[in-house]
């Protein structure tokens, strides 16, 4: 088994495994993932409950990381608030990827009129200021996790579309695509089974980094108050405590640190994937 059939994916993993920074990133994400998965089961304090005096500093035996201006437990907020934050990031990145791949692949594969038409659509979304457009979308509807996710996904897909289009333009003229046509593969089959798998590496890297960007975007929107006030999230914690930054630094710092670590982990993994997929950097 080790001898026969090392797929390009397995080779990429072999390179990735030797990349220390990427492994550190993976470890960070692993710890965060673990805490978010089992934390809420172990630490059963409701993050909206008032559990102590307002602005209790960290180190108190009852509330380890202190309380915010209302006396809510920061640690409980971190443990519960991570899931929505990460979920919004992942879902928004998925929306971005799906829209981007769809538009980009059709545009790059069919070219000509299709490309020109879809190119206009991409440009339309590209010239809109992303934050402003997302804010408009969220205020038009009720601020909820769903609308925030959709808003981020809808404003952020253009880069993915352009990347996918460029990959399709490059790959569609390669010899093996001609071979696929010569054995009678349909356009749909060539797009999905022949070209797309070869275009995936940069798309995966980009999707990974897009997850980090989406988390930051969510935090930014929350900071401006544009998030679901009924769901505890890291962004909401920062947003609601920002007026008390000087009196209770911990209420903002700890969720900020969590976002920072998550995005850092994602970026390290993304860079590692980029190196692993880039054949020029691949050492044999």
């Amino acid at each position, binding site marked *: 088994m080790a001898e026969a059939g090392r797929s390009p994916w397995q080779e990429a993993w072999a390179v990735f495994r030797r990349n220390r920074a990427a492994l550190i990133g993976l470890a960070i994400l692993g710890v965060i993932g673990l805490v978010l998965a089992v934390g809420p089961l172990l630490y059963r304090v409701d993050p909206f409950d008032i559990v102590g005096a307002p602005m209790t500093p960290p180190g108190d035996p009852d509330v380890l990381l202190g309380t915010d201006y209302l006396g809510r437990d920061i640690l409980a907020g971190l443990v519960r608030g991570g899931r929505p934050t990460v979920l919004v990031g992942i879902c928004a990145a998925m929306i971005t990827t799906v829209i981007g791949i769809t538009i980009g692949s059709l545009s790059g594969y069919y070219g000509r009129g299709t490309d020109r038409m879809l190119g206009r659509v991409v440009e339309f979304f590209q010239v809109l200021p992303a934050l402003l457009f997302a804010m408009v979308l969220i205020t038009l509807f009720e601020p909820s996790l769903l609308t925030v996710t959709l808003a981020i996904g809808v404003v952020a897909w253009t880069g993915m579309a352009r990347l996918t289009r460029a990959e399709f333009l490059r790959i569609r003229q390669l010899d093996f695509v001609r071979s696929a046509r010569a054995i*009678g593969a349909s356009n749909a089959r060539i797009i999905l089974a022949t070209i797309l798998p070869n275009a995936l590496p940069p798309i995966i890297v980009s999707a990974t980094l897009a997850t980090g960007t989406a988390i930051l975007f969510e935090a930014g929107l929350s900071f401006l108050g544009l998030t679901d006030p009924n769901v505890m999230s890291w962004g909401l914690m920062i947003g609601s405590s920002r007026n008390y930054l000087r009196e209770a630094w911990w209420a903002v710092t700890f969720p900020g640190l969590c976002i920072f670590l998550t995005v850092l982990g994602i970026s390290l993994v993304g860079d590692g994937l980029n190196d692993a997929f880039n054949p020029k950097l691949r050492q044999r």
Partner: protein
Amino acid sequence: MTRLLEVQDLQVEFDTWDGRVRVIESLSFALAAGETLCIVGESGCGKSMTALAIMGLVPQPTGHITAGSVRLAGEDLVRASPARMQAVRGNEISMIFQEPMTSLNPVYPVGEQIAEAVRLHKGLDRDAARSRAVEMLRAVHIPEPERRVDEYPHQFSGGMRQRVMIAIALACEPKILIADEPTTALDVTVQAQIFELLVELRETRGTAIVFITHDVGAVAEMADRVIVMYAGRKVEEGGVEDILERPAHPYTRGLLACRPTLVLGDPGARSELAEIPGVVPPLHQLGAGCAFAPRCAQALQRCGVAAPPETRLADGHAAACWLLAPSEGAAA
């Protein structure tokens, strides 16, 4: 002779910045079941475009088949629907290309790429398609096919990859295999092996082969019949002996003279390599006459005025040259 494939007055044109260019002009030929037809000519003479036209793969949107027909067992493929052409490609007519190094998809094991063809056309399930892939790898003489079926293209050498391409092309038992310079990118020793393999597969499977090459040695090795093309036109057609031993068209003769010959032991005997002076003219600058006339040592005045008709020289041997036209026959 049962005519499997019949190309009639085929004409292919391309839109370019210099206007419409005719890359194939009134090309007609027929292919019998089980025979090997070689199409010979210099780069840019329309050999590959002929192959793509048969496959219905003339590059879009610039290329057009503007006249003529390609009949496969009577059915005109030029007018067939795209869906019908998809069913024909890989199933009834297959094609292999010049570049085995890049013609396989790097992200799939070779076995899956062979299986893809049979699953598309024969509706085999995964297991049946896989065993078919192993069987095909064995047929093209790849050692240890059970193991190599799961390997990826980068684990194969150029010659082995061309064998895999042939396995893919023949997996559905097509009636016709079009081989577009399949050995050009390979070492000479490997070339010989591929020729041998193609000859063997033709014998065992009865697949007719359209073999496109610029290598006269390959013609001698493979061909039953030969078509010589120049600037998108057929200049001569005949059996392999006719062409190699009694070439009639000045271009064919020039092409044959361009082969280097090895003379061992006597450095003085090393002869000057013959060449045809000039290059193939740009297709948009072709005049009314014979396309080869500007490079032809024997060109007559009328060669520059009108295109020569095809003259029958013997059974199955014909050439398009004014020197051979009945009225000029004495002059030649």
